[in-house]
Protein backbone atom coordinates (compact mmCIF):
# COMPACT_ATOMS: atom_id res chain seq x y z
CA UNK A 1 0.00 0.00 0.00
CA UNK A 2 1.07 3.52 -0.74
CA UNK A 3 1.70 6.22 1.83
CA UNK A 4 -0.56 9.18 0.96
CA UNK A 5 2.13 11.68 1.88
CA UNK A 6 5.50 10.34 0.91
CA UNK A 7 4.35 7.89 -1.77
CA UNK A 8 6.49 5.27 -0.07
CA UNK A 9 5.40 1.65 -0.18
CA UNK A 10 4.26 0.27 3.18
CA UNK A 11 3.65 -3.26 4.22
CA UNK A 12 1.05 -3.82 6.86
CA UNK A 13 1.15 -6.92 9.05
CA UNK A 14 -2.61 -7.10 8.49
CA UNK A 15 -3.65 -8.44 5.07
CA UNK A 16 -7.02 -6.72 5.52
CA UNK A 17 -5.33 -3.36 5.87
CA UNK A 18 -3.03 -4.13 2.98
CA UNK A 19 -6.10 -4.47 0.74
CA UNK A 20 -7.45 -1.06 1.74
CA UNK A 21 -4.85 0.52 -0.50
CA UNK A 22 -3.79 3.88 0.85
CA UNK A 23 -1.82 4.37 4.00
CA UNK A 24 -2.69 7.54 5.84
CA UNK A 25 0.46 8.91 7.28
CA UNK A 26 -1.20 12.32 7.38
CA UNK A 27 -3.55 13.44 10.09
CA UNK A 28 -6.93 14.78 9.05
CA UNK A 29 -8.75 15.91 12.19
CA UNK A 30 -12.38 14.98 12.74
CA UNK A 31 -14.90 17.79 12.82
CA UNK A 32 -17.04 17.80 15.93
CA UNK A 33 -20.42 16.89 14.37
CA UNK A 34 -18.87 13.90 12.61
CA UNK A 35 -19.26 11.88 15.77
CA UNK A 36 -22.99 12.72 15.76
CA UNK A 37 -24.86 13.15 19.05
CA UNK A 38 -25.41 10.89 22.02
CA UNK A 39 -28.45 8.83 22.96
CA UNK A 40 -28.97 7.22 26.34
CA UNK A 41 -29.85 3.55 26.15
CA UNK A 42 -32.31 1.75 28.41
CA UNK A 43 -32.48 -2.02 28.35
CA UNK A 44 -35.31 -4.30 29.41
CA UNK A 45 -34.13 -7.81 30.09
CA UNK A 46 -37.53 -9.48 30.08
CA UNK A 47 -41.12 -8.40 29.70
CA UNK A 48 -42.43 -7.28 33.04
CA UNK A 49 -39.08 -5.94 34.25
CA UNK A 50 -37.95 -2.31 34.39
CA UNK A 51 -35.96 -0.69 31.62
CA UNK A 52 -32.52 -0.03 33.05
CA UNK A 53 -30.00 2.55 31.89
CA UNK A 54 -27.00 0.72 30.43
CA UNK A 55 -24.99 3.39 28.61
CA UNK A 56 -25.07 5.55 25.53
CA UNK A 57 -24.43 5.44 21.79
CA UNK A 58 -23.43 7.99 19.19
CA UNK A 59 -25.94 8.23 16.36
CA UNK A 60 -27.40 10.84 14.02
CA UNK A 61 -31.04 9.98 14.84
CA UNK A 62 -33.14 7.73 17.10
CA UNK A 63 -33.70 4.94 14.57
CA UNK A 64 -30.02 4.45 13.95
CA UNK A 65 -29.38 4.81 17.69
CA UNK A 66 -31.65 1.80 18.21
CA UNK A 67 -29.88 -0.19 15.50
CA UNK A 68 -26.52 0.52 17.12
CA UNK A 69 -27.71 0.06 20.70
CA UNK A 70 -28.94 -3.42 19.87
CA UNK A 71 -25.46 -4.74 19.15
CA UNK A 72 -23.56 -2.70 21.72
CA UNK A 73 -25.90 -3.34 24.64
CA UNK A 74 -27.89 -6.45 23.85
CA UNK A 75 -25.55 -8.80 22.03
CA UNK A 76 -24.98 -11.00 25.08
CA UNK A 77 -27.68 -10.21 27.59
CA UNK A 78 -31.22 -11.31 26.96
CA UNK A 79 -33.33 -8.35 25.84
CA UNK A 80 -37.01 -7.73 25.21
CA UNK A 81 -36.97 -4.05 24.43
CA UNK A 82 -34.69 -1.05 24.18
CA UNK A 83 -35.37 2.64 24.63
CA UNK A 84 -33.15 5.42 23.36
CA UNK A 85 -33.46 9.02 24.48
CA UNK A 86 -31.35 11.97 23.33
CA UNK A 87 -28.93 12.78 26.15
CA UNK A 88 -29.93 16.41 25.81
CA UNK A 89 -33.48 15.47 26.82
CA UNK A 90 -32.56 14.00 30.19
CA UNK A 91 -33.20 16.21 33.18
CA UNK A 92 -31.16 15.53 36.26
CA UNK A 93 -31.72 16.39 39.89
CA UNK A 94 -28.36 17.73 40.98
CA UNK A 95 -26.29 15.82 43.48
CA UNK A 96 -25.90 19.03 45.44
CA UNK A 97 -29.52 18.45 46.43
CA UNK A 98 -29.03 14.84 47.40
CA UNK A 99 -29.92 15.74 50.99
CA UNK A 100 -33.46 16.48 49.85
CA UNK A 101 -34.02 12.76 49.52
CA UNK A 102 -33.11 11.79 53.05
CA UNK A 103 -36.07 11.41 55.39
CA UNK A 104 -35.96 11.95 59.12
CA UNK A 105 -36.59 8.92 61.32
CA UNK A 106 -40.08 10.05 62.36
CA UNK A 107 -41.43 9.38 58.85
CA UNK A 108 -41.97 5.77 59.82
CA UNK A 109 -45.72 6.39 59.79
CA UNK A 110 -45.60 5.94 56.03
CA UNK A 111 -43.69 2.68 56.10
CA UNK A 112 -45.26 -0.71 56.74
CA UNK A 113 -42.48 -1.37 59.21
CA UNK A 114 -43.67 1.60 61.23
CA UNK A 115 -46.68 -0.33 62.47
CA UNK A 116 -45.80 -2.90 65.06
CA UNK A 117 -48.82 -4.59 66.60
CA UNK A 118 -47.74 -7.99 67.68
CA UNK A 119 -46.52 -6.89 71.12
CA UNK A 120 -49.76 -5.07 71.78
CA UNK A 121 -51.78 -8.13 70.96
CA UNK A 122 -49.61 -10.39 73.03
CA UNK A 123 -49.79 -8.21 76.10
CA UNK A 124 -53.55 -8.03 75.68
CA UNK A 125 -53.66 -11.83 75.47
CA UNK A 126 -51.47 -12.07 78.56
CA UNK A 127 -53.75 -9.73 80.48
CA UNK A 128 -56.76 -11.81 79.45
CA UNK A 129 -55.03 -14.91 80.70
CA UNK A 130 -54.40 -13.29 84.09
CA UNK A 131 -58.01 -12.27 84.33
CA UNK A 132 -59.32 -15.76 83.73
CA UNK A 133 -56.78 -17.22 86.18
CA UNK A 134 -58.25 -15.16 88.95
Amino acid at each position, binding site marked *: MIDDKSGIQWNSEDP*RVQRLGTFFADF*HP*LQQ*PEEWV*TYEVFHQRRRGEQHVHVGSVHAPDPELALVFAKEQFARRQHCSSLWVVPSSQ*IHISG*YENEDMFSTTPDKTYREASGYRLRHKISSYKQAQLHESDR
Partner: protein
Amino acid sequence: MYGGGYVFSDPEHQIPPDDPEKLAEFEARIDRGEKIEPQDWMPYEYRRQLIRLIEQHAHSEIMGALPEGAWITRAPGFKRKLALIAKVQDEVGHAQLLYSAAETLGKSRADMVNDLLSGKSKYSNVFNYPAKTWADVAVIGFLIDAAAIVNQVANSKGSYGPYCRALERICYEESFHLKQGYDAFVALATGTKSQRAMLQDAVNRWYRPIIHFFGPPDQESKHSKQLMRWKVKMASNDDMRNQFLDSYVPKVLELDITFPDPELRKDPQTGRWQFGDPDWAEFYRVINGDGPCNAERLAVRRLAEAQGRWIRQAIMNPQQSVTIPFA
Protein backbone atom coordinates in the same frame (compact mmCIF):
# COMPACT_ATOMS: atom_id res chain seq x y z
CA MET B 1 -7.92 -4.74 27.19
CA TYR B 2 -5.61 -2.26 28.68
CA GLY B 3 -2.24 -1.83 30.24
CA GLY B 4 -1.16 -0.03 33.30
CA GLY B 5 1.64 2.40 33.25
CA TYR B 6 -0.66 5.15 32.17
CA VAL B 7 1.02 8.42 31.75
CA PHE B 8 -0.37 10.73 34.36
CA SER B 9 0.78 14.17 33.55
CA ASP B 10 2.60 16.27 36.05
CA PRO B 11 0.36 18.71 37.82
CA GLU B 12 0.19 21.84 35.76
CA HIS B 13 1.73 24.92 37.22
CA GLN B 14 -1.43 26.92 37.01
CA ILE B 15 -4.00 24.71 38.60
CA PRO B 16 -6.87 26.94 39.59
CA PRO B 17 -7.13 26.77 43.36
CA ASP B 18 -9.95 24.54 44.55
CA ASP B 19 -12.49 25.81 47.02
CA PRO B 20 -11.17 24.32 50.28
CA GLU B 21 -14.62 23.66 51.67
CA LYS B 22 -15.77 21.80 48.57
CA LEU B 23 -12.49 19.93 48.41
CA ALA B 24 -12.90 18.73 52.00
CA GLU B 25 -16.44 17.58 51.24
CA PHE B 26 -15.25 15.81 48.08
CA GLU B 27 -12.45 14.01 49.88
CA ALA B 28 -14.75 13.03 52.74
CA ARG B 29 -17.10 11.46 50.22
CA ILE B 30 -14.29 9.40 48.73
CA ASP B 31 -13.11 8.42 52.22
CA ARG B 32 -16.59 7.13 52.96
CA GLY B 33 -16.28 4.89 49.88
CA GLU B 34 -18.92 6.81 47.92
CA LYS B 35 -18.66 7.25 44.17
CA ILE B 36 -18.26 10.57 42.41
CA GLU B 37 -20.81 11.24 39.66
CA PRO B 38 -20.43 13.52 36.62
CA GLN B 39 -22.64 16.27 38.03
CA ASP B 40 -20.65 16.50 41.25
CA TRP B 41 -18.20 19.22 41.99
CA MET B 42 -14.70 17.83 41.59
CA PRO B 43 -11.19 19.24 41.87
CA TYR B 44 -9.75 20.53 38.63
CA GLU B 45 -6.87 18.11 38.83
CA TYR B 46 -9.15 15.13 39.52
CA ARG B 47 -11.12 15.83 36.37
CA ARG B 48 -8.02 16.40 34.29
CA GLN B 49 -6.25 13.24 35.38
CA LEU B 50 -9.37 11.11 35.03
CA ILE B 51 -10.01 12.30 31.48
CA ARG B 52 -6.43 11.42 30.71
CA LEU B 53 -6.64 8.01 32.31
CA ILE B 54 -9.97 6.93 30.81
CA GLU B 55 -9.09 8.35 27.42
CA GLN B 56 -5.79 6.43 27.34
CA HIS B 57 -7.67 3.34 28.37
CA ALA B 58 -10.17 3.84 25.52
CA HIS B 59 -7.38 4.43 22.98
CA SER B 60 -5.71 1.24 24.15
CA GLU B 61 -8.86 -0.74 23.46
CA ILE B 62 -9.22 0.50 19.90
CA MET B 63 -5.49 0.15 19.20
CA GLY B 64 -5.61 -3.25 20.89
CA ALA B 65 -8.03 -4.38 18.20
CA LEU B 66 -5.27 -4.06 15.58
CA PRO B 67 -2.62 -6.70 16.37
CA GLU B 68 -5.19 -9.44 16.91
CA GLY B 69 -7.42 -8.13 14.14
CA ALA B 70 -4.59 -8.88 11.74
CA TRP B 71 -5.31 -12.59 12.26
CA ILE B 72 -9.09 -12.53 11.94
CA THR B 73 -9.01 -13.67 8.32
CA ARG B 74 -6.49 -16.41 9.11
CA ALA B 75 -7.86 -17.87 12.35
CA PRO B 76 -7.63 -21.65 12.14
CA GLY B 77 -11.06 -23.24 12.24
CA PHE B 78 -14.60 -22.09 12.90
CA LYS B 79 -14.26 -21.99 16.68
CA ARG B 80 -11.16 -19.77 16.64
CA LYS B 81 -12.49 -17.61 13.83
CA LEU B 82 -15.75 -16.85 15.60
CA ALA B 83 -14.10 -16.37 18.99
CA LEU B 84 -11.51 -13.97 17.59
CA ILE B 85 -14.08 -11.81 15.80
CA ALA B 86 -16.16 -11.70 18.99
CA LYS B 87 -13.12 -10.87 21.08
CA VAL B 88 -11.89 -8.06 18.85
CA GLN B 89 -15.48 -6.80 18.62
CA ASP B 90 -15.58 -6.65 22.42
CA GLU B 91 -12.41 -4.55 22.44
CA VAL B 92 -14.05 -2.08 20.05
CA GLY B 93 -17.06 -2.16 22.36
CA HIS B 94 -14.79 -1.41 25.32
CA ALA B 95 -13.45 1.62 23.53
CA GLN B 96 -17.03 2.74 22.93
CA LEU B 97 -17.92 2.35 26.62
CA LEU B 98 -14.78 4.06 27.83
CA TYR B 99 -15.00 7.02 25.48
CA SER B 100 -18.54 7.50 26.77
CA ALA B 101 -17.30 7.41 30.37
CA ALA B 102 -14.62 9.98 29.56
CA GLU B 103 -17.15 12.15 27.73
CA THR B 104 -19.15 12.55 30.92
CA LEU B 105 -16.18 14.56 32.19
CA GLY B 106 -16.61 17.06 29.38
CA LYS B 107 -14.30 16.07 26.54
CA SER B 108 -15.99 15.08 23.31
CA ARG B 109 -15.21 11.81 21.54
CA ALA B 110 -14.09 13.71 18.44
CA ASP B 111 -11.54 15.59 20.54
CA MET B 112 -10.26 12.39 22.05
CA VAL B 113 -10.00 10.64 18.68
CA ASN B 114 -8.18 13.66 17.29
CA ASP B 115 -5.70 13.58 20.14
CA LEU B 116 -5.08 9.91 19.43
CA LEU B 117 -4.65 10.43 15.68
CA SER B 118 -2.36 13.42 16.07
CA GLY B 119 -0.12 11.46 18.39
CA LYS B 120 -0.80 13.74 21.34
CA SER B 121 -2.49 11.07 23.45
CA LYS B 122 -0.82 7.89 24.61
CA TYR B 123 -2.09 4.34 24.63
CA SER B 124 -0.73 1.14 26.04
CA ASN B 125 2.78 0.36 24.78
CA VAL B 126 2.03 -3.29 24.39
CA PHE B 127 0.05 -2.69 21.20
CA ASN B 128 3.06 -1.20 19.50
CA TYR B 129 4.53 -4.67 19.08
CA PRO B 130 3.68 -6.87 16.12
CA ALA B 131 1.60 -10.05 16.13
CA LYS B 132 3.86 -12.10 13.89
CA THR B 133 2.25 -15.52 14.05
CA TRP B 134 -0.95 -17.19 15.20
CA ALA B 135 0.82 -17.99 18.47
CA ASP B 136 1.01 -14.26 19.18
CA VAL B 137 -2.77 -14.19 19.15
CA ALA B 138 -2.80 -16.91 21.80
CA VAL B 139 -0.22 -15.07 23.92
CA ILE B 140 -2.09 -11.79 23.65
CA GLY B 141 -5.47 -13.35 24.41
CA PHE B 142 -4.12 -15.22 27.39
CA LEU B 143 -1.35 -13.17 29.00
CA ILE B 144 -2.06 -9.61 27.88
CA ASP B 145 -5.74 -9.95 28.64
CA ALA B 146 -4.88 -11.53 31.99
CA ALA B 147 -2.67 -8.56 32.79
CA ALA B 148 -5.41 -6.22 31.65
CA ILE B 149 -7.85 -7.90 34.00
CA VAL B 150 -5.55 -7.33 37.00
CA ASN B 151 -5.41 -3.69 36.04
CA GLN B 152 -9.08 -3.25 35.28
CA VAL B 153 -10.35 -5.04 38.35
CA ALA B 154 -8.23 -2.66 40.43
CA ASN B 155 -9.55 0.36 38.54
CA SER B 156 -13.15 -0.80 38.86
CA LYS B 157 -12.92 -0.05 42.57
CA GLY B 158 -11.98 3.54 41.88
CA SER B 159 -14.00 6.60 42.79
CA TYR B 160 -15.53 7.74 39.49
CA GLY B 161 -18.99 6.23 38.94
CA PRO B 162 -19.19 6.11 35.12
CA TYR B 163 -15.70 4.58 34.83
CA CYS B 164 -16.53 1.92 37.43
CA ARG B 165 -19.78 1.04 35.67
CA ALA B 166 -18.03 0.69 32.31
CA LEU B 167 -15.36 -1.48 33.91
CA GLU B 168 -17.90 -3.78 35.48
CA ARG B 169 -19.23 -4.71 32.06
CA ILE B 170 -15.72 -4.80 30.60
CA CYS B 171 -14.37 -7.15 33.25
CA TYR B 172 -17.26 -9.51 32.60
CA GLU B 173 -16.28 -9.70 28.93
CA GLU B 174 -12.58 -9.93 29.72
CA SER B 175 -13.13 -13.23 31.46
CA PHE B 176 -14.27 -14.62 28.10
CA HIS B 177 -11.16 -13.13 26.47
CA LEU B 178 -8.90 -14.77 29.00
CA LYS B 179 -10.65 -18.13 28.65
CA GLN B 180 -10.51 -18.20 24.87
CA GLY B 181 -6.90 -17.01 24.95
CA TYR B 182 -5.90 -19.68 27.45
CA ASP B 183 -7.72 -22.26 25.34
CA ALA B 184 -5.75 -21.27 22.23
CA PHE B 185 -2.54 -21.15 24.28
CA VAL B 186 -3.05 -24.64 25.71
CA ALA B 187 -3.95 -26.00 22.27
CA LEU B 188 -0.53 -24.91 20.99
CA ALA B 189 1.35 -25.93 24.12
CA THR B 190 -0.11 -29.43 24.00
CA GLY B 191 0.12 -29.66 20.20
CA THR B 192 2.82 -30.66 17.75
CA LYS B 193 6.49 -29.91 18.17
CA SER B 194 6.39 -27.02 15.78
CA GLN B 195 3.26 -25.60 17.42
CA ARG B 196 5.12 -25.62 20.72
CA ALA B 197 8.14 -23.98 19.12
CA MET B 198 5.93 -21.31 17.62
CA LEU B 199 4.36 -20.64 21.02
CA GLN B 200 7.71 -20.55 22.80
CA ASP B 201 8.97 -18.07 20.25
CA ALA B 202 5.94 -15.85 20.79
CA VAL B 203 6.30 -15.99 24.58
CA ASN B 204 9.96 -15.02 24.21
CA ARG B 205 9.04 -11.99 22.15
CA TRP B 206 6.19 -10.89 24.40
CA TYR B 207 7.93 -11.39 27.72
CA ARG B 208 9.45 -7.93 27.92
CA PRO B 209 6.37 -6.03 26.76
CA ILE B 210 4.41 -7.95 29.38
CA ILE B 211 6.83 -6.94 32.14
CA HIS B 212 6.54 -3.37 30.86
CA PHE B 213 2.77 -3.62 30.80
CA PHE B 214 2.16 -2.35 34.30
CA GLY B 215 4.53 0.55 33.87
CA PRO B 216 7.85 1.41 35.48
CA PRO B 217 8.54 0.76 39.17
CA ASP B 218 6.64 3.03 41.49
CA GLN B 219 8.18 6.24 42.52
CA GLU B 220 6.93 7.75 45.69
CA SER B 221 5.75 11.17 44.70
CA LYS B 222 3.37 13.56 46.30
CA HIS B 223 1.48 13.61 43.05
CA SER B 224 0.77 9.87 42.93
CA LYS B 225 -0.16 9.95 46.63
CA GLN B 226 -2.91 12.41 45.82
CA LEU B 227 -4.17 10.30 42.91
CA MET B 228 -4.25 7.27 45.22
CA ARG B 229 -6.10 9.23 47.86
CA TRP B 230 -8.68 10.30 45.26
CA LYS B 231 -8.94 6.69 44.04
CA VAL B 232 -7.89 7.57 40.53
CA LYS B 233 -4.82 5.38 40.72
CA MET B 234 -5.87 2.25 42.55
CA ALA B 235 -2.81 0.09 42.93
CA SER B 236 0.89 0.50 42.50
CA ASN B 237 2.48 -0.70 39.27
CA ASP B 238 4.73 -3.08 41.18
CA ASP B 239 1.88 -4.59 43.17
CA MET B 240 -0.18 -5.24 40.06
CA ARG B 241 2.81 -6.72 38.25
CA ASN B 242 3.50 -8.96 41.20
CA GLN B 243 -0.09 -10.11 41.39
CA PHE B 244 -0.04 -10.93 37.70
CA LEU B 245 3.22 -12.89 37.88
CA ASP B 246 1.91 -14.75 40.90
CA SER B 247 -1.16 -15.96 39.10
CA TYR B 248 0.11 -16.60 35.59
CA VAL B 249 3.78 -17.58 35.63
CA PRO B 250 2.92 -20.99 37.12
CA LYS B 251 0.20 -21.54 34.50
CA VAL B 252 2.76 -21.04 31.73
CA LEU B 253 5.53 -23.08 33.35
CA GLU B 254 3.10 -25.93 33.96
CA LEU B 255 2.91 -26.34 30.19
CA ASP B 256 6.71 -26.54 29.91
CA ILE B 257 6.84 -23.18 28.24
CA THR B 258 9.59 -20.98 29.66
CA PHE B 259 10.31 -17.28 30.00
CA PRO B 260 13.50 -15.87 28.51
CA ASP B 261 14.75 -14.54 31.84
CA PRO B 262 17.04 -16.62 34.06
CA GLU B 263 16.51 -14.19 36.91
CA LEU B 264 12.74 -14.58 36.98
CA ARG B 265 11.84 -16.16 40.33
CA LYS B 266 9.74 -15.58 43.35
CA ASP B 267 11.54 -14.64 46.56
CA PRO B 268 10.03 -17.00 49.13
CA GLN B 269 10.84 -14.58 51.94
CA THR B 270 9.17 -11.48 50.58
CA GLY B 271 6.66 -13.09 48.23
CA ARG B 272 7.82 -10.68 45.53
CA TRP B 273 8.83 -11.69 42.04
CA GLN B 274 12.26 -10.74 40.84
CA PHE B 275 13.24 -10.40 37.22
CA GLY B 276 16.18 -9.32 35.12
CA ASP B 277 16.55 -5.73 33.96
CA PRO B 278 13.61 -5.20 31.56
CA ASP B 279 15.27 -2.16 29.98
CA TRP B 280 13.00 0.64 31.01
CA ALA B 281 14.70 2.84 28.46
CA GLU B 282 12.91 0.77 25.81
CA PHE B 283 9.62 1.40 27.58
CA TYR B 284 10.19 5.14 27.32
CA ARG B 285 11.35 4.90 23.73
CA VAL B 286 8.18 3.07 22.71
CA ILE B 287 5.84 5.32 24.63
CA ASN B 288 7.41 8.30 22.94
CA GLY B 289 6.70 6.91 19.52
CA ASP B 290 9.70 4.81 18.68
CA GLY B 291 8.39 1.27 18.93
CA PRO B 292 8.30 -1.38 16.24
CA CYS B 293 4.67 -0.63 15.25
CA ASN B 294 3.84 2.89 16.47
CA ALA B 295 3.83 4.33 12.96
CA GLU B 296 1.76 1.50 11.51
CA ARG B 297 -0.81 1.58 14.32
CA LEU B 298 -1.36 5.32 13.99
CA ALA B 299 -1.48 5.14 10.21
CA VAL B 300 -4.04 2.34 10.32
CA ARG B 301 -6.26 4.26 12.72
CA ARG B 302 -6.02 7.31 10.49
CA LEU B 303 -6.86 5.14 7.52
CA ALA B 304 -9.92 3.70 9.27
CA GLU B 305 -11.16 7.14 10.29
CA ALA B 306 -10.49 8.56 6.83
CA GLN B 307 -12.36 5.68 5.15
CA GLY B 308 -15.37 6.21 7.37
CA ARG B 309 -15.48 9.95 6.99
CA TRP B 310 -17.93 10.12 4.07
CA ILE B 311 -20.40 8.04 6.06
CA ARG B 312 -20.12 10.06 9.24
CA GLN B 313 -20.32 13.34 7.38
CA ALA B 314 -23.19 12.35 5.10
CA ILE B 315 -25.54 11.84 8.01
CA MET B 316 -24.32 14.41 10.47
CA ASN B 317 -26.22 17.54 11.30
CA PRO B 318 -23.70 20.39 11.14
CA GLN B 319 -26.04 22.64 13.13
CA GLN B 320 -26.38 20.23 15.99
CA SER B 321 -24.17 21.00 18.93
CA VAL B 322 -22.18 18.22 20.52
CA THR B 323 -23.85 16.41 23.37
CA ILE B 324 -22.26 14.22 25.98
CA PRO B 325 -23.74 11.27 27.84
CA PHE B 326 -25.01 12.08 31.30
CA ALA B 327 -23.86 8.97 33.14
